[in-house]
């Protein structure tokens, strides 16, 4: 069949799928391009509703050329993955606008299967998966519609059925087929958002907009180390007068060869990091990791090796920071200041230095300076501009968030000649009691100072004295800052966490999401190995691929047999099955009856030959006549009566024998 019968439905469904797809890319593609795709989809819907002709090839191709220019100018060539997705979407939408023949639609639908999986490059949440799966079923239904004249509903049902049948097999394949390593390196899509930046410059920020976006989760092996948890991500070692930056020297921090030390102070845990544009990862103290795709450097920081776009799960060993030591040149490196502004702060540093015998004393004096001088923590600081922003903060404003305190403190340490650096990362996290893991969200972002004293690196966090509750647990749990925090955060479940039910729901959803990330998205080679080991033991792992093949063959055979099974006989009219039951009974007891007689005649013959059951058979015959010939309704009573009669007939003969 070459012509299509469900033209309208097919167009509607495909337009709907593409509108949905486009909406998934709103964050990753420029707005003009998104708008253009939506307009094209809308146009197709309009043409279908009004039953108008699709644009001719010349017009559409001209339009496509313009669209291509818009696409290239708004996206550019930098991000190849985004460009590829944009081209895929554009070509499919245009093809849909021109599609007339069955072949055209087949091409679009086939490409849609690819477009659908492209969404997973950017988002892998449960919600995305549900929506994409629905589109997947719908797309299959449309494919079925091309071949038949069914309704979309019937076609969707068929499509969902085959999908449901295929689902368990695909799960088995995913679980048990050995995980292959990547064939070649593909560029990953670049993500847009992050909570941290390579530059700590808090002074021109009027309002720290908090997001409750998930950053990573951590699960400790055994007892968790004592709080507070400073999750280190970036070290900033260079002050340019206004902001703390990461020097290029530090960026090239040496890769630390994986080592296997088992000191007693070591904390071991697993982190599941959400996809992010940045390549930094998170760890407590001096971290190292043996997981593939993770690099540990000499600063005790972790970095991604590849796969920026996917959820990354890695195991971390953390030692206390104090275990590393600096040589003289390194100490000099961490105490240099190339600028000479913020005179007041420098004076303060000198003053404190004069009052203290060593770095540790200076540390404590600065801490007490912060606690005694009415500093306060806020998420809505007053923006500060000009040359001496640190001075403005230290002596005039005294209100700020972690970035302010860390910048100022690190500057003061360095002014006093003490090696110091600003570290940004996340503080705390919310412990989920059910599954015993910590959730760290974007609003847990924090900055603090690491100071090198005789005892090694030490964390100096002025926030600890200004807002001590910030140190334990997440910001969402801190009571003093709660109101301010909630005013600040975008509307979400977190902002409603005062209500017990909603908080419970939030935690449950989070738990589900954790399991999803940990088991579905994070199911990698290692996890597969563990699964094999627990299921089959180490001896028989090599049997697994064979097992998979056998299971597949068995399933396909079973399905094949099911499809070709002899179909059950069609439904008989009332009492016919009961009649045959009597015939069978008669055959069993060798009661003869003429072959070509009517049912009533046959029944008479049988009843004549079996005197003990005569009464019942005659009664059944009467019933049969009533229902089959006199058209009395076949009610439940009659049905039961027939059943009882048959029971009686069978029992009489038995008694007789």
């Amino acid at each position, binding site marked *: *069949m*070459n012509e299509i019968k469900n033209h309208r439905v097919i167009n509607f469904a495909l337009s709907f799928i593409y509108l949905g797809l486009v909406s998934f890319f709103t964050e990753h593609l420029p707005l003009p391009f998104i708008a253009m795709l939506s307009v094209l989809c809308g146009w197709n819907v309009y043409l279908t509703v009004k039953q108008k002709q699709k644009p001719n090839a010349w017009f559409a191709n001209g339009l496509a050329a313009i669209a291509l220019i818009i696409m290239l100018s708004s996206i550019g060539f930098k991000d190849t993955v985004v460009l590829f997705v944009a081209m895929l979407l554009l070509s499919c939408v245009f093809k849909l606008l021109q599609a007339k023949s069955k072949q055209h639609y*087949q*091409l679009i639908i*086939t*490409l849609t*299967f*690819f477009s*659908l*999986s*492209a969404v*997973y*490059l950017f988002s*892998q949440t449960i919600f995305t*998966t549900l929506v*994409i799966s629905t589109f*997947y079923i719908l797309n*299959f239904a449309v*494919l*079925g519609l*091309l*071949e*038949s*004249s069914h309704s979309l509903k019937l076609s969707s049902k*068929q*499509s969902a059925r*085959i*999908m449901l*049948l*295929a*689902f368990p*097999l*695909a*799960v088995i*394949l*995913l679980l048990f*087929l050995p*995980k*292959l*390593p*990547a*064939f*070649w*390196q*593909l560029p*990953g899509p670049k993500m847009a958002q992050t909570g941290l930046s390579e530059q700590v410059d808090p002074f021109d920020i009027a309002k720290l907009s908090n997001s409750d976006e998930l950053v990573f989760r951590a699960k400790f092996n055994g007892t968790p180390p004592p709080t507070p948890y400073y999750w280190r991500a970036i070290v900033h070692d260079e002050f340019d007068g206004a902001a703390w930056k990461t020097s290029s020297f530090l960026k090239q921090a040496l890769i630390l060869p994986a080592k296997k030390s088992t000191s007693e102070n070591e904390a071991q845990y697993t982190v599941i990091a959400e996809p992010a544009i940045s390549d930094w990862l998170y760890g407590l103290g001096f971290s190292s990791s043996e997981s593939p795709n993770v690099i540990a450097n000499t600063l005790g920081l972790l970095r991604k090796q590849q*796969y920026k*776009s*996917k959820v990354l799960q890695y195991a971390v060993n953390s030692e206390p920071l104090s275990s590393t030591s600096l040589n003289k040149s390194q100490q000099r490196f961490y105490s240099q200041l190339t600028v000479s502004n913020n005179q007041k702060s420098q004076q303060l540093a000198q003053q404190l230095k004069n009052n203290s015998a060593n770095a540790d004393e200076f540390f404590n004096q600065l801490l007490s300076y912060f606690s005694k001088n009415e500093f306060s923590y806020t998420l809505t600081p007053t923006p500060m501009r000009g040359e001496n922003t640190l001075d403005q903060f230290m002596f005039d404003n005294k209100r700020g968030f972690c970035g302010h305190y860390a910048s100022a403190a690190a500057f003061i340490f360095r002014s006093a000649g003490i090696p110091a650096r600003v570290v940004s990362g996340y503080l705390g996290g919310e412990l989920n009691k059910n599954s015993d893991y910590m959730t760290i969200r974007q609003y847990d972002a924090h900055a603090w100072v690491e100071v090198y004293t005789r005892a090694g690196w030490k964390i100096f966090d002025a926030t600890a004295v200004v807002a001590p509750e910030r140190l334990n647990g997440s910001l969402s749990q801190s009571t003093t800052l709660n109101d301010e925090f909630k005013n600040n955060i975008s509307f979400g479940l977190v902002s409603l966490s005062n209500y017990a039910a909603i908080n419970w729901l939030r935690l449950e959803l989070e738990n589900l999401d954790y399991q999803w990330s940990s088991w*579905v*998205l994070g*199911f*990698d080679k290692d996890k597969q190995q563990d699964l094999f080991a627990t299921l089959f033991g180490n001896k028989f792992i090599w049997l697994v691929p064979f097992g998979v093949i056998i299971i597949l063959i068995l399933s*396909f055979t079973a*399905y*094949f047999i099911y*499809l*070709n099974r002899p*179909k059950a006989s*069609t439904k008989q009219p009332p009492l016919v099955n009961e009649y045959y039951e009597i015939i069978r009974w008669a055959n069993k007891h060798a009661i003869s009856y003429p072959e070509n007689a009517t049912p009533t005649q046959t029944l008479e013959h049988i009843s004549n030959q079996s005197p003990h059951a005569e009464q019942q058979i005659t009664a059944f015959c009467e019933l049969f006549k009533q229902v089959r010939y006199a058209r009395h309704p076949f009610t439940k009573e009659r049905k039961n009566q027939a059943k009882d009669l048959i029971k009686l007939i069978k029992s009489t003969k038995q008694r007789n024998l």
Partner: protein
Amino acid sequence: MRIYKFKRPTFIDDIKSAILTALLKNKHKKNSITLKHNTIYVLPSTLGVYFSVVASLNFVMGINYQNNLILFMAYLMFVIIIFALLLGYSNARGLTVSFKYAIDSFAPQTPQLVWQIEADDPCQSITLSYPKDLKNACYITRVKNEVIKCQLSLPYTKRGCYKLKPIKIASNYPFGLVSVWSYIQPNKAVYVYPSIIKTTNQKHQNLVANNTDEGTEKHKGDDEFESLITHLPEMGLQRISWKHYAKTQQLLVKQFSDFKSADAQFDFNLVTGDTEQRLGQLCFLVCQAFESDINYSLKLPNKLITTNSGRLHHQRCLQALSQVGNDNE
């Protein structure tokens, strides 16, 4: 007349059909075929191949980005294509296609084949098609516990006799991902008769007219009174000739008769024009003679059909006309 033009496709087609014939071992040369395991052929369709390519692309993408969701999609697609092969086979199995009869045609109309299709288990999206002629394919949405008749027109518009090529019974169910097919090749030829050209060719006209005048044979009809016969009970009262009853008191019935027309002779050499025109005129004459029920004979360059009448004779003459100049018959 043969046009000498080098055509590669013919030669490839010949090889192809030779291989096909060798492989099929006359399994399909029947008038009725019930599809079962040794007569059903299953392969992924073009769409199915594209689908598998996209599945492989998804697989590569899933592997390279170590993305379980994409990988899952790829696996799902692979499983579905195998399911589709199984479904496609099961769908076609048990379908019975029987050739009923052929309807010959006058050029430039196309001859038709009448088929009967039945199946106990539901069978969907069946297409009957003649080789290289998908346009006129005969499409059946669904067969279940019923007998469906369908007509397939053949792509022959020129006069001639055509031996039937294998007819493809195909289905793209489900989702068009697989192509399940079989063949049926009734041992039968279809004829495209010459297109009718009206003629007033005097010689033949006269022949017909003269013969009619001579009136050699009579048989029952209603043109001319023949005789009176005795009334029999089954004849009905309305046929009694009451006039004669009044005169003779006998129940009599009038018997009428037609003049049996004399034999006509249609000769290829007596009509004018080129071969096709002559055949067209002869065709017209033969048909006219059949309608007016005259005995006629037909003389063609290499064939003579002796005088006769009736439907079969008519058909024989038309078939002979369509075969003139055809070497293959």
